[in-house]
């Protein structure tokens, strides 16, 4: 994958591009994209992948003017337009799934294939989503992974909490990334998507790890009810980071969109 920059109307946008075939736009979750992300690499074996970073993620420029859900949605459409793409497969994980669903709802005739991987965006009082923003680094693996031990190894690689300079860098990254994510996820990741899901016309596949402890599978059913004709693929022995834990199965599920 290659990291590039494209000029979108509000801000220059950094994006990963790689692979060949049908164009697919992937919108990342609140954690962003890892360098050499294995999921993107797997997607790129089948698709021409474009994975834009939200402003403030990775080394990309921040954009204070993107404040609310409509701003996020239109910005993401701006990026698709700037990349010159028409009707790409649109996929999003977690927060990215929330944005992708909003994009498909606001412009239902421009997207015909939608893959939502354990998306955020709904709220069920019986299944309150844990507060991501008060979660301490060491608590994340529990929430995100089916295999907590492997998840811990993945998330804590390179951490040096006792080094003040490292800590400063970590806090800056968190402030940039989660600060941006907070605009649509804090304090409750619901910006009214439930009332707009009916507009989605795309063929939609919902992909969920059956052991997701962050956005539990009850949400999968709520999405399925909300999006007419959507199909649910539940992947066993996988948590919220199903893209990392069961990479191939997620790619296969997306492929069901044709």
């Amino acid at each position, binding site marked *: 994958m290659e990291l590039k920059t494209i000029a979108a109307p509000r801000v220059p946008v950094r994006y990963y591009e790689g692979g060949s075939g049908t164009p697919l736009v992937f919108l990342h979750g609140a954690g962003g994209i890892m360098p050499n992300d294995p999921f993107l690499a797997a997607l790129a074996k089948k698709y021409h992948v474009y994975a834009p970073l939200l402003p403030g993620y990775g080394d990309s420029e921040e954009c*204070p003017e993107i*404040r609310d859900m409509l701003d996020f949605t239109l910005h993401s459409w701006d990026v698709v337009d700037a990349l010159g793409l028409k009707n790409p497969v649109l996929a999003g994980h977690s927060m990215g799934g929330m944005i992708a669903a909003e994009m498909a709802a606001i412009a239902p005739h421009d997207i015909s294939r939608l893959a939502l991987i354990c998306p955020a965006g709904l709220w069920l009082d019986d299944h309150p989503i844990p*507060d991501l*923003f*008060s*979660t*301490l680094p060491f*608590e994340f693996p529990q929430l995100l992974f089916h295999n907590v031990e492997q998840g811990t190894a993945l998330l804590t690689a390179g951490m040096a*909490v006792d080094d*003040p300079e490292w*800590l*400063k860098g970590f*806090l*800056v990254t*968190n*402030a*940039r*990334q*989660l*600060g*941006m994510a*907070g*605009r649509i996820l*804090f*304090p*409750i990741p619901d910006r009214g998507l439930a009332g707009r899901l009916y507009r989605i016309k795309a063929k939609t596949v919902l992909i969920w790890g059956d052991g997701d402890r962050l956005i539990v599978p009850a949400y999968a059913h709520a999405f399925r009810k909300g999006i007419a004709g959507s199909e649910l693929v539940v992947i066993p022995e996988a948590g919220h980071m199903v893209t990392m834990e069961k990479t191939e199965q997620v790619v296969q599920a997306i492929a069901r969109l044709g």
Partner: protein
Amino acid sequence: MKFTWFNLMPWPHLPDDFREKNRSVWVDIDQKLFDPVKSNAVYNTYLDLLEYADGLGFDGVGCNEHHQNGYGLMPSPNLIAAALTRRTKDAAIVVLGNSIALYNPPVRVAEEFAMLDCMSGGRLVAGFPVGTSMDTNFCYGQIPSLTREKYAEAHDLIMRAWHEREPFAFNGRYNKLRHVNIWPRPIQAPNPPIHIPGGGSVETYDFCIDNTYSYSYLSFTGYIRAKALLDGYWRRVEERGAPDKSPYRAGFAQTICVADTDEEAQRLYEEHVLYFYNRCLHVYPGFADAPGYRTIKTIQSGALSQYAPNFSFATLTWKDLVEGGHVIAGSPETVRQRMEDLITGLHVGNIFCLMHVGNMPAEKCMYSTKLFAEKVMPKLRNMFPEYKDDSRFWCHPIGNRAKPGSLPDARELAAAGGR
């Protein structure tokens, strides 16, 4: 010097094993630990103590705003301030302050502060904190990375509401108001003096300097640890080209305990000080700083708050706290010396004296307060003679203020009826 007697109003009945059994004193504190019936006496004693401080000649009595917090029983500081307008006589009423991004619409603050100023005869000192992340983000749901923008807009709206004499339209991002026209408006025209509590944000330094507001550092970790932060502030005052370095441009909160001797201070106050530092400050680190609440510039400057992830919950001893300067405690002479070090070291003219500590009972608190007022305060009064006329950062009460209980007596009433 301006000495404000400040009460955080801690809940004094947290159990001994609070820290072991609870993850946080703030945000998700156990509801069952609050007893509304007991709180009746707690509130009344705390108000009595504030009134007592007024009678002893403190320049101000102070209160602040916290939410869902075991060491702060004042979600609405204006209610406490309103109660204080009635039975205090001369002290400034220092509300430090209203977290203006949390009021919807923020003209509510302009109105309530105006009421307090009118009711007290111009004794209000108004504070505008951004609010901690615990209060602002986790309790009151403000989006962390938009909190400062919302705060700035609220500030502009409040100031315009106080300054303009005609109704105006306010088309803000967070507030759309077609007819702003506050009624009443404050006695102190056009606005009461303003103090801004801060925790080391560079942006807050500049905001204070540019608007001639006093910067207050309200830490509990004492004057020794505050040196670097206040030095940074004074450097900034210089860099920014402020016309002077008046010590009243800054304030500092300090826990203070006075007794006859140093030994007596430990004997009398140790358990209450330890209650506060080891029990009340037990905040879950996840609530310390919602990502996006602090600006990148502030994080990069390294001025992390006392609640930052590296804040340790080690159990502190009396010796740690006194030697580390968290607490200034001892005989009047010991306290005087250390206060002098604080005042000159930090170059601050406004001292917020935290004299009620943790679960301290009223009689001990009165004893300490009286000794401070009579044996320490007078000796510190004239620390900055060259700035004694700087009245920009303090209230300007009217003369001849109305007194409570001034209704006509029974005879006058009968006479009026017979007319």
